[in-house]
């Protein structure tokens, strides 16, 4: 039984993440009075890309070739190391919050290097912008997680979920502040509005898309999939560490069923909010982004200070 649960835990993130992207696009389309593609379109896209031939720049080195594998593997690793639907699948080995932050940074590191590898002007500037944003997001990211870690008295994300559930209340101000801080980091790290526009290929606006501009075929599929995974990972962290309601605490089938449903509903809400933000907000000018990121850091600092 627990082996099956572990397998589900490992493959759940890559299996569901394209659906999340499809849902966001569908909702955005609806909000713009368009019909929009099917929510399963990202799966078709991945399938199509995996079967396409590739064009690789002659300036590219092995870093360019290996980067998609590493980036995707990192999201698999992190996806398996965080509480999804069950907190009892405690993973003491790799489930430390700093491990998660810095393992995700491996992905960012290789993505930025891959962007520079082909020597195109787009890739280089994409990398520069990405590293600027992620460097400034780091403080908010760690401190937001630290708020819940101090409340849960552990830096293990599973334990945080578990203890947060027993002491959960809706009006805990520090948690709400830290969540707001975390949400800003979520938008920054997953290349959403107002940090980046995931749907554009204009050189002035793109960050993530600029770095993967030279990719095609299988490697592009891996990168697209990895970024979908990353979005789901952040949505999961945001919901299960701050609002762990419904998460399964035992291997009881009923608890697990509730856990899975609660997980899907909570993550769905996050995707809806992201779609709403993307529909009613413009992308920020690049040099206004630091303000937002510092606000996220300060929100978390205040949250920690308020924590008893």
């Amino acid at each position, binding site marked *: 039984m627990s082996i099956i649960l572990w397998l589900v835990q490992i493959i759940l993130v890559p299996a569901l993440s394209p659906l999340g992207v499809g849902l966001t696009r569908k909702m955005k389309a609806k909000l713009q009075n368009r019909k929009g593609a099917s929510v399963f379109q990202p799966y078709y896209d991945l399938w199509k890309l*995996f079967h*396409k*031939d*590739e064009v*690789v*720049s*002659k*300036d590219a080195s*092995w*870093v360019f070739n290996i980067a998609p*594998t*590493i980036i995707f*593997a*990192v999201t*698999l690793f992190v996806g*398996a190391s965080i509480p999804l639907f069950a907190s009892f699948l405690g993973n*003491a*080995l*790799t489930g*430390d919050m*700093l*491990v998660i932050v*810095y*393992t995700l*940074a*491996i992905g*960012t*590191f290789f993505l*930025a*290097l891959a962007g*520079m*590898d*082909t*020597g*195109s002007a*787009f890739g*280089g*500037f994409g*990398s*520069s*912008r990405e*590293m*600027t944003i992620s*460097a400034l997001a*780091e*403080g908010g*990211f*760690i*401190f937001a997680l*630290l708020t819940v*870690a101090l409340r849960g*008295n*552990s*830096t*293990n994300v599973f334990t945080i979920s578990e203890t947060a559930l027993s002491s959960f209340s809706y009006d805990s101000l520090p948690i709400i502040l830290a969540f707001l801080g975390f949400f800003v980091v979520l938008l920054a790290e997953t290349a959403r509005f107002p940090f980046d526009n995931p749907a554009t290929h204009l050189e002035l606006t793109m960050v993530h898309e600029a770095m993967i*501009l*030279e990719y095609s*075929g*299988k490697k592009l599929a891996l990168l697209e999939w990895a970024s979908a995974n990353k979005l789901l990972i952040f949505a999961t962290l945001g919901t299960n560490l701050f609002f762990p309601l419904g998460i399964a605490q035992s291997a009881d089938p009923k608890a697990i069923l509730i856990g899975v449903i609660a997980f899907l509903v909570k993550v769905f809400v996050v995707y809806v909010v992201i779609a709403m933000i993307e529909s009613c907000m413009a992308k920020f000018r690049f*040099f206004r982004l630091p303000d937002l990121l510092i606000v996220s850091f300060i929100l978390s600092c205040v949250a920690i200070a308020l924590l008893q």
Partner: protein
Amino acid sequence: MIDTIVSPAGFIALLSFFFVGALGSFVFQKNDRLANLWGSLFAIVGSIWGILFSILLLRSSSDIFFTTGTSVFPLLSISFNLDKLAGFFVFVISLIALFCSIYGLGYVKHYYRKYNIGALGFFYNLFIVGMLAVVTASNGLFFLIAWEIMSVASYFLVVYDRDDEDNVKAGFLYLIMTHIGTVFIILAFILLYQSTGSFDFTSIKASVALVPLSVKNIIFVLAMVGFGTKAGIVPFHIWLPSAHPAAPSHVSGLMSGVMIKTGIYMMIRIFMDMLQPIPAWWGLTILIVGSVSSLLGVLYALTEHDIKRLLAYHSIENIGIILLGLGSALTFSSLNMPTLALLSLVAALFHTLNHATFKSLLFLSAGSVINATHTRNMEEYGGLIKYMPQTAFFFLIGSMAISALPPFNGFFSEWLTFQSLFQGLAGLDFPSKAIFMASAGALAFTGGLALACFVKAFGATFLARPRSKEVEHAKESSFLLRFGMGALAILSLLFGVFSGYVSSVLVEIGRGFDALSTAPSFLSVSKNYGLGTGTFSFVSAPMIFVFLLIAIVLVFLATKYLVHKKQEVIIGDTWDCGVNLNPRMEITSTGFARSIILIFKGVLKPSIQKDVEYHDDKSRFLPKSRTVILSVNDVYQIYFYLPLSKFVAYLSERAKTIQGGNVNFYIFYIFVAVLASLFLVQ
């Protein structure tokens, strides 16, 4: 067998290896090859002996304390104290010296017939002897002699490449700064002597209760400035970014990796060992100093496009991180929380070891690149990964380790540092809590910025297309160079994967201090070599490594064999919007960091200067050439050193008036001086 090595004779043998190496290369200076071989081989053998010696010392249960010879001066005694802490630093010095010497054996070849190889071997070995004596000396005066040997020998290594005017200037700055630091150290020792009546570390420690608190506080400030100058804390770091790049690369590796740590060693020795118990504000001050150093270090590193200066600024950053661990250790120990103090001290020591490994690795790889391209300017690199694939790989590992990416060693010591800061943040009251919070924030931002900086360094150096002709002629380095780098790269991984074991050894070193000897270890090491801090957190380095590896291999195999095998890969040009693709389209290291610099413009003070030259100065319609100079103004230069030098100049101007040129006046001065001293002596 073990007793014969771990003995005074064993340690004397260790020093004599380097002495023989130094003298031999001096004697054979007429013959370049022989001098290099002799100097490097003795350094290699000595380092291996040092590693063996220190490992056995750390495993043995007793310390070694001995005095050699009878000194003619009453206060000077050549006494060594080889306790666990000294043993650890002997280990770090020997380990890095080993790989730097192997690298040096190959690297020095390009100085043949250009400079005196014998002198290089002489000062190189003397430098290592100096460092070994510094971390083992047990007498204040003997310590100062060792300190001077280390500083002066390294000065000659800095100015070794003397054809370059800048190197001579850098060496001069280094010599001045290191002696200003030494003045503060001497003052600190004199104050200690005044209260305790001895220069011997053991007697000072025994009678430390005689030192009044106010004097202790002054000693703290003096020692912080003195040893901080050597360690490179902001704002006393100005010598570091110019001196480290000037030296030959294997010496830079030793200076950045090990020499600056001797400052850290003495801080630990004095604050943690000799002056206990200490007031709480010392630790908090060190935390603030550490935060400022780490943040400013990494920000200035981002502004650099000289690869070795960039690495030198990262040394300042990492010294800051070590100080964060040390500062929390001191705070906890003065608040009588020895368990947490032990955890923080382990973090500081572990980061000392890790920084030594990956920083020397990075300096050696940078040296290998410079050797092939004959420039330190990163804007003239690009695409080196195709010409020097192995050097690029080693540099990549060094970059990942210094950016604290798991499973490399940098992550685990930063993890421990974070944990000790978190403990202070959770357990202490205001204002300590606020300082710990600020430090944790500084560490978090430092990590992010370091990652950005190494994307820039690696990307601008090794990726994309060559930006100069030199790169196209670059060849992979010789075997000895690659061996030195490769071994350090493997060590960076091993110290990461076996961080649990390393930490358990470091806990024993921490227990060597009286204040911590009975502390129950908060840090636990489990069966699978994981690291844990109480029930608060746990991380398993081998498992992270294995799981990451499994995930990468799985993804690799799945994409290669599972999905659609009949795929064609077409090699084409990079998309360039239809214009001619050339290296000028690539992002440069200046361009890469410009946005971060503009964001931090309050601190970094970026300046932009535009010059236009016209064909006709009067009509000014047709520009001939345009120049844009982007630079950064150093705030500590503007607000600290410039006013200071102005003040000194003003004083000198005033003092000049007594120098009238009349001999009679001078005789009068002498007369007054004699009278005054007669009265004082009475």
